[in-house]
């Protein structure tokens, strides 16, 4: 099987992945986005910037992460399952890859302050961490409902010196935090850098965040080449909320024959159940009603509780280069337990979506016996213990 010719290496100059992406923001933010775009292109082409980022990713954040063979689970399932271990990154998830890149960029641009949106708090904690590391003031916008659900991460952010601003509008969750952060950015563009947490937002963010996350896929590709007789896995799978860990993982395998599978939460599946829309500055698939009012998603995994998805995923889906599927909360909780007992790894509820799909796909034959599967384990599960305790 050969991979269809899909060129998602970079979007068009105006930020399009096919029909998706673009820059749908108020005029006040257009010059700021332009400036980020110019600065990112220059930085990404600058070996000094790249080596400084590599240094921090390696010496501080824990790269490279291992590709762990899941021996016992593989034997149970009759496949070869390899886990890309982003759960071992500093702060507990892949979010730090992107944040360190953007924070260094912000510093290079002369910005002194970072702002970010957060849902579960993982991106907020990562941003607060980068702010502390680089000596930049950090403000994180978080829905009031998420603040109540994720008290531990709120305390982590405050411990790191960040200001956490509760958002009381709308559904008081991630989408509202994102809207509020954009509103705030309008008032503060002169000294403030908006650090988006996923492959979302106005151009250049979806592309830039994918580039900062592609380290996952690039590393995994090299590691898979060493670990697998065939060189590349048959299937590459990752969970998708906004889609940054999946985009970073897929980036390493787009030009291989590997099947790419993105796993959405049943209650927050913009690709599987959404329609074309514009939210938070970009065009993509969005959960909405017939008039275009944005829906409120529901997932046990707060990191997947977002009504949109990165434009690159909508593009890959349209072209059939990646396939997007859903799993439900029950399958996800079962997957956390199964992986924990088989491999001694408690993964995040978000990452467990990918595990749950593999468990199901082996029984349906979508993953054939003997297949090789590379799965990005995007984060660790410590933050979800309260949720799981309530269920047991």
């Amino acid at each position, binding site marked *: 099987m050969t991979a269809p010719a899909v060129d998602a290496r970079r979007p068009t100059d*105006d930020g399009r992945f096919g029909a998706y992406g*673009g*820059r*749908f*923001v*108020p*005029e*006040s*933010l*257009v*010059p*700021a986005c332009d400036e980020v775009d110019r600065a990112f292109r220059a930085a990404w082409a600058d070996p000094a910037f790249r080596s400084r980022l590599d240094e921090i990713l390696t010496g501080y954040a824990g790269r490279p992460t291992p590709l762990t063979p899941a021996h016992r689970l593989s034997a149970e399932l009759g496949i070869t399952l390899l886990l890309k271990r982003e759960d071992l990154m500093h702060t507990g998830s892949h979010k730090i890859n992107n944040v360190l890149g953007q924070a260094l960029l912000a510093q290079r641009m002369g910005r002194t302050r970072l702002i970010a949106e957060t849902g579960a708090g993982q991106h907020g904690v990562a941003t607060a961490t980068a702010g502390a590391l680089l000596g930049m003031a950090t403000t994180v916008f978080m829905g009031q409902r998420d603040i109540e659900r994720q008290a531990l991460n709120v305390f982590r952010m405050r411990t790191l010196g960040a200001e956490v601003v509760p958002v009381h*509008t*709308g559904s008081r969750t991630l*989408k*509202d935090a994102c*809207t509020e952060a*954009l*509103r705030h950015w*309008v*008032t*503060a*563009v*002169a000294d403030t850098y908006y650090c988006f947490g996923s492959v979302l937002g106005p151009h250049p963010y979806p592309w830039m965040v994918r580039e900062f996350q592609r380290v996952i896929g690039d590393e995994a590709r090299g590691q898979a080449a060493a670990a697998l007789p065939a060189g590349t896995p048959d299937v590459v799978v990752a969970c998708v909320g906004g889609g940054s860990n999946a985009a970073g993982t897929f980036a390493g395998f787009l030009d291989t024959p590997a099947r790419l599978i993105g796993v959405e939460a049943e209650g927050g599946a913009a690709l599987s159940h959404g*329609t*074309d*829309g*514009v*939210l*938070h*500055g970009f*065009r993509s698939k*969005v959960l*909405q009603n*017939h*008039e*275009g*009012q*944005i829906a409120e998603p529901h997932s046990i995994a707060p990191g997947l509780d977002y009504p949109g998805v990165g434009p690159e995923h909508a593009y890959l889906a349209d072209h059939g280069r990646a396939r997007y599927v859903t799993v439900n909360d029950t399958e996800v909780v079962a997957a956390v337990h199964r992986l924990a007992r088989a491999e001694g790894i408690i993964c995040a509820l978000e990452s467990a979506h990918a595990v749950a799909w593999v468990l199901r796909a082996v029984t349906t034959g979508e993953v054939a016996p003997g297949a090789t599967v590379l799965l990005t384990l995007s984060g660790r599960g410590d933050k979800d213990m309260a949720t799981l305790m309530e269920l047991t």
Partner: protein
Amino acid sequence: MNPLETHTRRVRDRGRKLLVPYLTGGLGAGWTDHVLAAAEAGADVVEIGLPFSDPMLDGPTIQRASDAALAAGATVDGILADVARIDPGVPMAAMTYANLVFRRGADRFCAALRDAGIAGLIVPDVPVDEVEPLSRAAAAEQLDLVLLVSPATPAERRVEIVKRGSGFVYTVSLMGTTGERPALPESAGALATALKQLTDLPVLLGFGVSSAAAARAAAEHADGVIVGSAVMRKVLAGATPAEAGGFLATLREALDRPDD
């Protein structure tokens, strides 16, 4: 020239400063009485907000008004049906966000506005770089597509925006969301003056025009003002159409008698 721009130019050329109040559509059963009262109080154009669940450029007052209207069941179709039943005697312009426009399709959306008797459209999250399909759809329905200029807009973009926009130029007075402010920043007048040198379109100032004094200050440089949050705060607090109209009448007075 489309009907909205014909009207705004005529008012401006008569030496009258334009007063453009914003009212959230669908907020309460008798919401269109506010539109009629605004026209009665001396509005030259009435801006009708079509509420969106995630209004990126709106401050707390308009957010609250939008949320309340949506919670009460407001829909684009319902608001347009209400609008179609009134004739305020001055043009109306719709203000909304990109997703409501593109969900229906720009062509169908613009056709629905025109069928309801609306003459202009303002979509703040469709900047000039993304405006092409919407421009074509609006032009086909003889709707004026009003574009915004911000204090952050570089000089060469200003030229592009005033060239592509029609109806009037919406000058954003400050770097921020909609909402009341104690006074207009000094830079707002300078921006309006600079824009007037670039275009023959009427140049209006909005964002933070909250009082008669601010309206008077804005009109020293601009061809008129857009007033949203100051009037919507009163409507949310239960002001009757006559009371909200009374407030707008004080702005009218300030615009008509700049020397007081």
